[in-house]
């Protein structure tokens, strides 16, 4: 029995990310202004590396030219393979391990970093085919990589990161220091 009665749809329920993930931030990664990363940590300790909405790639209607997971001659994140429940064989990453390089059509290039210690489980190959996903849905389908921190480091890996609240403070300071040209 269908009913046309309008449910309160404007009060939107929390999204999947809101419900199951905690957002952590790294501002000005490696001292580069505004190169903010956002780490989504699931309650099961799995972490998803994404671009923070303030990252330069997502500003000023940029278009992506290429995404490259080959971070050096010898190492491509695309070769990462994990097997079994224990995820054997995955590349182990530290905070500043590069994950990929993104080049925009204006020839600006950005490196995206792991931001946390852990085992690389997968990188997002969909954004290679459809780079626009990264711009349209940076915090879901446009994710960069999935990392599994060590069990014993579940809590400590986020110590160097900013909470949502702290990150917003950073953003308001940034706005005062460098007022955006309208």
């Amino acid at each position, binding site marked *: 029995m*269908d009913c046309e009665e309008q449910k309160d749809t404007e009060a939107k329920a929390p999204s999947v990310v809101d419900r199951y993930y905690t957002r952590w931030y790294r501002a000005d990664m490696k001292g580069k202004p505004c190169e903010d990363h956002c780490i989504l940590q699931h309650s099961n300790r799995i972490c998803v590396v994404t671009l923070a909405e303030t990252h330069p790639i997502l500003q000023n209607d940029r278009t992506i030219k290429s995404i490259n997971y080959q971070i050096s001659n010898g190492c491509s994140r695309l070769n990462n393979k994990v097997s079994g429940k224990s995820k054997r064989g995955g590349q182990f990453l530290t905070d500043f391990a590069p994950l990929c390089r993104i080049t925009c059509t204006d020839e600006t290039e950005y490196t995206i970093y792991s931001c946390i210690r852990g085992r690389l489980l997968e990188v997002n190959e969909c954004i290679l085919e459809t780079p626009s996903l990264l711009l349209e849905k940076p915090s879901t*389908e446009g*994710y960069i990589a999935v990392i599994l921190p060590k069990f014993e480091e579940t809590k400590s890996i986020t110590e160097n990161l900013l909470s949502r609240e702290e990150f917003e403070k950073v953003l308001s300071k940034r706005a005062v220091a460098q007022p955006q040209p309208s």
Partner: protein
Amino acid sequence: MLPLKEKDKPIVQKLLAAGCCARCVLRFCCVSVHAAYRQPPQVRLHYSPGFKLGASGENNKSHDAAGSDAHEEPPSKRAKLEPGASGDMSGEDAAAVAGQRDEELRVCVVCVGVLQELCDATQASKVCVRVCSQMCWGLFSAVDELTCPFWILQHSCWLHVKKELREKSAKLDKDDVVQVKEAFKWVMQGLVAKELGGSTLCSQSKFEVGVEFSHPETDADCHFLASTCPDCFKPTKNKQSVFTRMAVVKALEKIPEDRHSPCPPRRPSSSCVPLDVQCLHASVFVAGRYNKFCRSLPQTPWLIDGERRMESSVEELIAAPVLSSFRAAGFNFSSSGREDVDVRTLGNGRPFAMELLNPHRSSFSTAQMKQLQETINKSSDKIRVRDLQIVSREAMSRMKEGEEEKTKSYTALVWTLKPIRRDDISFIDDIQDLTLDQKTPLRVLHRRALAVRHRVIHSMSARFLDSHHFYLSLKTQAGTYIKEFVHGDFGRTKPNMCELLKTDTDILELDVESVDVDWPPSIPE
């Protein structure tokens, strides 16, 4: 009667001279006739056939050594040979056996008393007192478990008569010697059964009585073994002691015969001490189907960092009444798949089975099972159980059999970002056998392998609710992750509802409507 033959003579004499008891003589002569062991052997005639079993456990507390038997027995019986005892033996041999009587009243060098005064009606009575206080049913078989010293003594004695045994028959080997535990069982089973008053003994029984002995005097032999053969006794995580039967037997084989501990074994000054009686019943299996009506109830206890997250679980709500009815020591719960904490399971419910460990009650009538089911259902309104029944271990595997091929039906409440109209979602009804590529969902990836699984949604139907909500009914292959199909899991399930509707979608509620597994058999209400 002792079914010994003329050709056993050299072995019998050598064993008696070494200090073996009569039952151990039978063992090393490889006699497997149970009745031979049940006969009070000549040397033990002081346990007359008329010996009364009336004494309770308390009264027998002090009755622990060979010496105390002496004044309980009619002396006239002592010298008497059991009628027909020497059927196949010459009178001379029988006399020789009788002549050894005084010698053999002493503790046997091989069984250290286990087949002597620890293997009689008094001991059986003690065992029964312990059994009755623990158990409430009839079928059982008795076994005893022996430890390291016994294996060493056994081996020493074997080396001692090996030559003679081989002369008797070339086919006889160490394995043909009757084990102490076998002989003990043959003697004790009948006595225990009699004591328990008409209990049925059967070797196929699921109920075991364990009798434990210790003999501190020969413990040193174990250490001799360990120091001679250290590589055989490496500590393992799960075992309490390094002196496992396997390790001891292996070490004994490795030690050269001439370097072995005394052969034949030294005469011990005391017999074994009975330690404890353990009653163990084989697992009983119970199966049924459960409904879960609550969106804040996990299937199994939910622990994070050792701390409980929810106050109860389906498993615990079912297990508590079952455990107390079966008086079981523990359980293992399994089910045909499982639902998330926030998912309800409606319809006929989800098949489950429980292994009940060491139950102290095992037979239940259909009516009693129905009663138990009622007790579970009255105890909580969060769950309901049906088709509760006792099943066999073999039948349990039917639940997991072909699980992948089975279908499950669900209803999901779906939210859409863009407003929808009735006809925007009607195309969903026409989708048939849609194959999904599902990467292991992020929410379970920490405990499951990363893989892409192909799962089929056989059919779907959408029921419009309002401009941002609709009910989605699905019939899917078992193992399909419904939540991920609806929200897409960061694009890791493809296709997903977001793609189909070209807007963000999310799942607000999920119900399992049916789990199509035809086991366990349904029980009419």
